[in-house]
């Protein structure tokens, strides 16, 4: 079974969903079936593949895909499946374009992660961005404002990415990043800056982050979940792949990225702490997470990239978990104001447990998965020397407001009992909502307690990315 088919299935399903647009129930179940089938086939493919290229056929190679990002693409599809399940009770029967666009975003995000070709990468990134822009308008009203900010800023970012990709082609003479040779330092500097600004805008790096809280806040929660947990992390992986394909890699670029990353963590953490809206709180926390991933990129060593890619995968799991928990809360209480919630631990124990695990994992508390990846990144920062130990200390210090924010939100939403809120309706907590929360919670624990197998795989991947 080949990966290219597992990416095509969601696209074919998207076409089917569009055909059955008026019959939302049929479209919903077609979407769930299609993406689940894709995830199952991808899983089977990972087990069947016995060599580095076993997962890809000539069609995939022609489309500019490679196995390097296979693990990350797999997590994209699996989280995409959870998000689609979650959409069934959450979205209900409205909106004929919802499922086709969601499936297109999932498929193109996974394809972008696998892409090694400058032209196809641009196609996948842009398709994902434009589909997202339309999907963000889904709830109408204030969502139009969010969609405007999203599409304008991301299109500016896309222009920078396009220029970077064209400069790559002109300087290296090939569209395939695997065939890149060496070029002048000035060319690399220019390409790196354009690439960082372009993809950094999509990741939500400070100061190009202003679209993030609005978009994640106003988009339907399953869409916010996929954007914050997966699209952002997948774009960070694309940045790693393309940045480290450039030769020579420049120390000044890495230091610039590291400093920007620390700034991003600080802004994300402090702004998150001050938020009163649950989704905006998580949006700012995703900015903080993006900063941690980028810090690994800025260190640029093999150990840092191992931590960074593990953090990317962890972010997909942890961030999706907390977003889905918040989605469950909003669906059950119709309330997203942190101050208007309270005492939910007894009414929604699974959601409370899931949120606590996700929050602790995101805060880097052992023995959860976030601890391992953040430890690897910080360790690599201290090992690198120069400015990096000081930056690592600054990064660690700046994550404390985020931890305090999570504690505050958990206490307020789940433990505080002085709030009188309407009891959540049990029907909202359908199996489509609960199962993803349970699976992601278990993954957070398992990936933290038994990280060796994944870290070994990622270590090989990071060595390959650095040309080792």
């Amino acid at each position, binding site marked *: 079974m080949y990966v290219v088919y597992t990416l095509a299935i969601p696209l074919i399903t998207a076409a089917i969903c569009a055909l059955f647009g008026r019959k939302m129930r049929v479209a919903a179940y077609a979407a769930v079936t299609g993406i689940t089938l894709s995830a199952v086939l991808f899983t089977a493919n990972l087990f069947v593949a016995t060599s580095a290229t076993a997962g890809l056929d000539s069609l995939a190679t022609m489309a500019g895909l490679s196995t390097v990002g296979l693990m990350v693409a797999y997590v994209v599809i699996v989280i995409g499946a959870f998000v689609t399940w979650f959409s069934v009770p959450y979205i209900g029967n409205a909106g004929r374009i919802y499922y086709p666009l969601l499936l297109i975003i999932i498929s193109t995000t996974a394809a972008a992660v696998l892409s090694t070709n400058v032209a196809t990468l*641009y196609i996948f990134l842009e398709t994902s961005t434009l589909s997202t822009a339309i999907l963000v308008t889904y709830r109408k009203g204030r969502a*139009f404002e*969010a969609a*405007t900010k999203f599409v304008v800023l991301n*299109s*500016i970012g896309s222009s920078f990415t*396009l220029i970077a990709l064209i*400069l790559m082609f002109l300087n290296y003479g090939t569209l395939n990043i695997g065939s890149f040779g060496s070029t002048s330092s000035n060319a690399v500097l220019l390409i790196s800056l354009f690439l960082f600004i372009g993809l950094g805008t999509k990741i939500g790096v400070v100061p190009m982050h202003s679209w993030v809280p609005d978009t994640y806040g106003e988009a339907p929660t399953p869409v916010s979940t996929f954007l914050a947990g997966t699209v952002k992390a997948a774009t960070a992986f694309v940045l790693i792949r393309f940045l480290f394909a450039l030769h020579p890699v420049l120390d000044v670029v890495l230091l610039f990225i590291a400093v920007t990353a620390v700034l991003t963590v600080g802004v994300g953490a402090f702004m998150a702490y001050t938020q009163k809206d649950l989704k905006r709180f998580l949006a700012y926390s995703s900015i903080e997470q993006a900063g941690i991933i980028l810090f690994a990129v800025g260190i640029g060593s093999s150990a840092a990239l191992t931590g960074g890619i593990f953090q990317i995968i962890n972010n997909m799991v942890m961030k999706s978990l907390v977003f889905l928990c918040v989605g469950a809360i909003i669906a059950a209480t119709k309330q997203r104001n942190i101050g208007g919630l309270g005492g939910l631990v007894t009414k929604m124990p699974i959601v409370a447990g899931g949120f606590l695990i996700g929050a602790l994992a995101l805060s880097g508390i052992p023995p959860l998965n976030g601890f391992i990846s953040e430890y690897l990144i910080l360790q690599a920062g201290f090992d690198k020397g120069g400015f990096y130990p000081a930056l690592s200390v600054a990064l660690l210090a700046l994550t404390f407001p985020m931890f305090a924010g999570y504690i505050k939100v958990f206490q307020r939403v789940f433990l505080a009992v002085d709030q009188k809120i309407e009891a959540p309706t049990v029907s909202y907590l359908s199996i489509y909502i609960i199962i993803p929360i349970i699976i992601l919670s278990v993954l957070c624990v398992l990936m933290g307690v038994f990280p060796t197998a994944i870290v070994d795989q990622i270590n090989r991947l990071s060595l390959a990315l650095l040309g080792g």
Partner: protein
Amino acid sequence: METVLAFGILWVICAILIVILSDKWSTLALLALNLLIAAFLLTENDLTGALVKAALGIASPLIILLAVARTKQPQPRFGTLPLISAALLTLALSYLVAFSTQSQFPPGRITESYVLIALFGIAFLILVSQRSILKLLIGILVLENIGTLLIAWGENTALLSIVAEVFVVLITLTIALIALMDFAEYGSIDGSKLTNLRG
């Protein structure tokens, strides 16, 4: 070199007109810019690039014109005189940057590099000086045009230029559609008034 210089001057004039003029007239300036780029590609013997640019380069301004006709232009943030001054200052700064980095330019592409840096500066000015969402869209399209001109530097770039131009039209369509939604919801396409979500 004379051809590049002549086209370069015309492109920069079009870009400056985009900064100064109203939404409708700056869309026509964008159309002129696109057609001039298509003509330039023809002189460079890039037939595919020229055809793609001519065909799809008309589509984007047409879409914007349709959107302009269905919306009301917001009050400009700056008057004409400050905008002209800013454009000239940007141009001067761009040439200063180009002059100071000239030794790094690819051999035989000195004039083109100057023009591209000037266009980049003016595109940036459009993005920071305008309120209208459609004007911001035009600024993005000027940025994308830098990509189109860079593609022309390479060989066997038909695929890249088609991909880039198709997505330019799709970006235009999406932003124009969202601008229309904004106008229907808020009665304005003034980007600076979209502040309900701040905090």
